[in-house]
């Protein structure tokens, strides 16, 4: 049997394989794009870019946890809209697809950065409607399906490049997903970090300067798989699965739940990125062969089959 096809088409993008980074792992500086290009990703997602520069929070901003996950409150540190051009130019030079992640506190903010992204030649935008720890910049938007609809509609209205919408865990995530699709989103990225907190027991102080942060890594994987499954079941849209993916099994699981592509965040930390990407790809190939499938596409959503 010939080797299974890793190529996937997601959100109208043709990717050589299903793995990209999750937004927020590097991605705010052009040099980051070079670093990430060396990891073997099929596409790069930028750090979430807001119209204006943001300093972000003071350290500690990211902490490893006893449960194998991480908690972070970077605070959407980025150099603002003006950095989009540099990021796009670098990606173009390297010949790697770039998705600009966008954050904002209003429709206008999203439109503003999205237009810049299209102008600069980004391959797609990902609207981050789900940062769980930056007041006004996130999950409040994703919580409310009608706000999701409005923001996505406004952005889709002015762009020709694909719009991906990133949602986090919420009570009505399936409904929000539906609204995003209805408003014209080409794909959904599911899920963001989950609002959490860690306290140092010796000093009785919150671990992060921001007090609250987002939980990422293996702890959230079964929740991400669930959200992907529920949304896929309802609409069968293009889904980019995200949350705790570390091994090929994690990726396989979320693909079976309905994801066409995956984003890896935390597992890329500590210099392990290249190894992790390679490991996941090799494992997926072996697994597809074992199952007798000819492509990743054939595995998408298979867990729904009765």
């Amino acid at each position, binding site marked *: 049997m010939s080797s299974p096809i890793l190529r996937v088409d997601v959100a109208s993008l043709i990717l050589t394989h299903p793995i990209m980074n999750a937004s*927020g*792992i*590097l*991605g*705010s*500086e052009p*040099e*980051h794009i*070079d*670093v990430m290009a*060396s990891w073997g990703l099929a596409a790069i997602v930028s*750090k979430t870019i807001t119209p204006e520069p943001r300093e*972000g929070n*003071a*350290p*500690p*901003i*990211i*902490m*490893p946890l006893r449960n194998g996950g*991480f908690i*972070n409150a*970077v605070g959407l*540190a980025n150099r603002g809209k003006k950095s989009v051009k540099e990021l796009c130019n670098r990606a173009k030079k390297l010949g790697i697809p770039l998705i600009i992640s966008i954050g904002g506190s209003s429709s206008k903010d999203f439109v503003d950065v999205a237009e810049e992204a299209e102008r600069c030649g980004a391959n797609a935008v990902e609207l981050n409607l789900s940062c769980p720890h930056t007041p006004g910049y996130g999950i409040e938007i994703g919580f409310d399906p009608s706000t999701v609809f409005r923001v996505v509609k406004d952005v889709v209205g002015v762009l020709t490049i694909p719009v991906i919408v990133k949602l986090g865990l919420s009570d009505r995530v399936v409904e929000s997903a539906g609204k995003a699709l209805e408003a014209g989103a080409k794909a959904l990225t599911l899920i963001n970090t989950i609002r959490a907190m860690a306290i*140092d027991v*010796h*000093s009785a*102080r919150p*671990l992060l300067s921001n007090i609250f942060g987002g939980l990422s890594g293996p702890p959230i994987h079964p929740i991400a798989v669930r959200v992907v499954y529920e949304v896929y079941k309802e609409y069968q849209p293009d889904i980019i699965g995200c949350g705790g993916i570390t091994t090929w099994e994690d990726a396989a699981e979320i693909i079976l739940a309905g994801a066409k592509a995956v984003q890896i965040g*935390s597992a*890329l*930390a*500590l*210099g392990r*990125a290249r190894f992790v990407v390679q490991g996941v790809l090799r494992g997926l190939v072996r697994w597809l062969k074992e199952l007798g499938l000819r492509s990743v596409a054939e595995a998408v959503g298979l867990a729904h089959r009765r």
Partner: protein
Amino acid sequence: MKLVEAEALRIEKASKTLWVAEFSVAEKLRGLPFEFAMIWVKGVDEIPLSIAWLDKQIVGFIFKIRGEGTRALSSIKRGDRVLMKIPLGKGFAPPSGTKILLVAGGVGIAPAPLLAKYCREVGCTLTIVWGVKSSDELCSPSSIWLDGVDLEVATEDGSQGFRGTALDLAMRIARDGVFDYVVAVGPRAMLRAFCREFPRDKCEKLVALETMVKCGMGMCGSCIVKPLPKLLCIDGPVFSCSEVMRHLELSNS
């Protein structure tokens, strides 16, 4: 990398400008020369400091007060606890049998004790040149685990040892001896001068850089060594002069 609770054993002023902080930790740590730790002085700040020494469950740092974080560290008491991510970075582990010259400016002496220990263990020859403005900035070798190390001192005012900068003295020493690696660590201006001026004929020239380390784990990207596509917290802090020359020239501090 581990996140460990560390208990302060000794926090003391070791010279006019330098402080020493020594901690005990519950588990055995390992670390290579130039690897560093992110120390969370609870509720204040998290700051990167080179591992100065490390012996089983004892870890020491040498630091200079620069702002809030280092000030907070200087004011903790014996028995207080901090959290640290340790070890971070790639470190610098020269092959055994090599000859190394370390050129340290000021608090650049911080990674020296761990390098000295490493060299003793693997069998490298180490010469350390330590330059400061004046002798009151020096600390006693024993207080910073540098007993019995070949340590040459330079003071800009000539108050002790060679009169001149660490770089001046290092160039003089290098004239007579042959070194496989020469590593400079100290203020950016010194590193720039070192990379420009130090004769490179027979040796590999390296510098230990500082950039803004915010997470220490290769996630936030703030430590990027522009214009290189390298992260200091993953690939550094030691780089060859040739690769970071442009970085040193671009930055103006």
